[in-house]
């Protein structure tokens, strides 16, 4: 059997797969949390004392749109939302598991993994989105 490369995040340091969690950065000086992780703190501009942190997988929709026209290569329609997480972080992501007309501001959602692409060796690249509902994979 040919060796199959293990699935990995579509960008290094963006998320971990088991359990699914987004990875941000947290400033030890002022406690500001960023996603994606940054090498500086956008709150106090410190460049040291920045550590990786896992973000809560559950959040709620701050605002959303249903995209019905996009450049070639992007399948429509899809729901795109700003999702607010308890750490005080806003994440832009697609929302699944709900009909577009059922999405509302404040809708509870939770993180899920999604196929993104494949790399040159055929390994699955994994991305993220949020699914409607408050159930969270452990």
């Amino acid at each position, binding site marked *: 059997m040919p060796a199959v490369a293990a699935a990995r995040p*579509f*960008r290094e340091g*963006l998320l971990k797969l088991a359990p699914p969690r987004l990875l941000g950065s947290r400033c030890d000086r002022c406690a*500001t*949390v*960023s996603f*994606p992780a*940054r090498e500086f703190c*956008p*709150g106090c501009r410190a460049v040291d004392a920045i550590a990786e942190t896992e973000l809560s997988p559950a959040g709620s929709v*701050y*605002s*959303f*749109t*249903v*995209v*019905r*026209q*996009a*450049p*070639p290569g*992007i399948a429509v329609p*899809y729901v*795109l*939302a*700003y999702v*607010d997480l308890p750490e*005080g*972080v*806003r994440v*832009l*992501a*697609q929302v699944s598991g709900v009909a*577009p007309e059922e999405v509302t*501001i404040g809708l509870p959602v939770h993180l899920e993994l999604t196929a*993104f692409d494949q790399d040159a060796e055929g390994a699955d690249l994994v*991305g*993220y*989105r949020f699914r409607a509902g408050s159930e969270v994979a452990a």
Partner: protein
Amino acid sequence: MTLAPAHVAGAGMIRFGKYPADVTLEKMAVGAARAALTDAGAELPHIDAVYVGHVFGGPVAGQRIAAQLGLDGRPVSNHENYCASGATALREAWVALAAGLHDVALVIGVEKMTDRVSGGVRPDPGDLDAAVGYVMAAGHGLSARRYMADHGATREQIAAVAVKNHAHSVHNPFAHYQRPIGLDEVLSARPIAEPLGLLDCSPISDGAAAMVLCSPAGLRRLGLTTSVPRMLGCALVSGSVRPGTGDVNEEDVSLRAAEEAWKLTGVGPGDIDLVEMHDCFTIAEIVRMEGLGLIPRGEGASWTEAGHTSLGGRLPVNPSGGLLSRGHPVGATGVAQACELTWQLRGTAGARQVEGARVGLSYCKGGTVNGTDGGSVTTLVMAR
């Protein structure tokens, strides 16, 4: 700090719209440049340098244009700040004139889009937002949804921006669209990024606009004695990384651009008689006017519905028709806005003239960067 103003000796455009393939980027730019040179009474030997704003024109587009125009050999620079590229070129020319480096500068904004962009524009593919499906229209759909929820604005009030701007450009011979549209037409247009539909979005257009800017010595070189109008200055700021979960329509980047403009030019918000606003989408005109501090927070939609931003209203916005109706060849837009301010301040804008206009402001916002409240923002102030 206040730099010396640049004198606007000439302004010229070609009509924005969809041109066939043989109307190249270079041809459009040459057409607009010749119109601006003629307007200024300038000959090619008068021009010291050429500043070109474009996004999709490819490497050294400015030099390709200069070689068609007869300005080969001059200092030519290409300026890319996405939809603020043309305004950024104007800013750099103004700085060079104020510094005494040049006395007569030709600024061109140009874009050939209809043969290379379809379905809307989006961020650089390397940006994280692009990777999760962000397109420009989506960002404004997210903004509109939240604005309606936070301020009780109606879909009709937001659509009124498109109705107003199309009504204005009926009188603009350079506009892509020159016919009025009704509110029902905007509301029933096919959805693009809900709640926004097709007529909430500026079109993909081809076009070019140009200006001849002068120092006082440059005016003398051209034999001009009048100094009307003057470009007092152009501020440039960038979006900042915004931690937290604040108001997506806070428009801190617009507030900072306004404060920079007032500081650079000595003009204040109460002095502004008209605005050429970057209405790439209907909702954008509303939230950006509020961000500049020219309309109270949360009242932009109701102001539009009440006609306060229409010609003849309290503060006319986009007498040219704006991006929604004049069209939006992205690199050309900032220069086209400055052409409109020029004609308005000269009092030669015809049926779309803002009566008694003395000071005008134009605003561009270019691009998006994940985690920030924008790419580039310019605020240009012109006075008669």
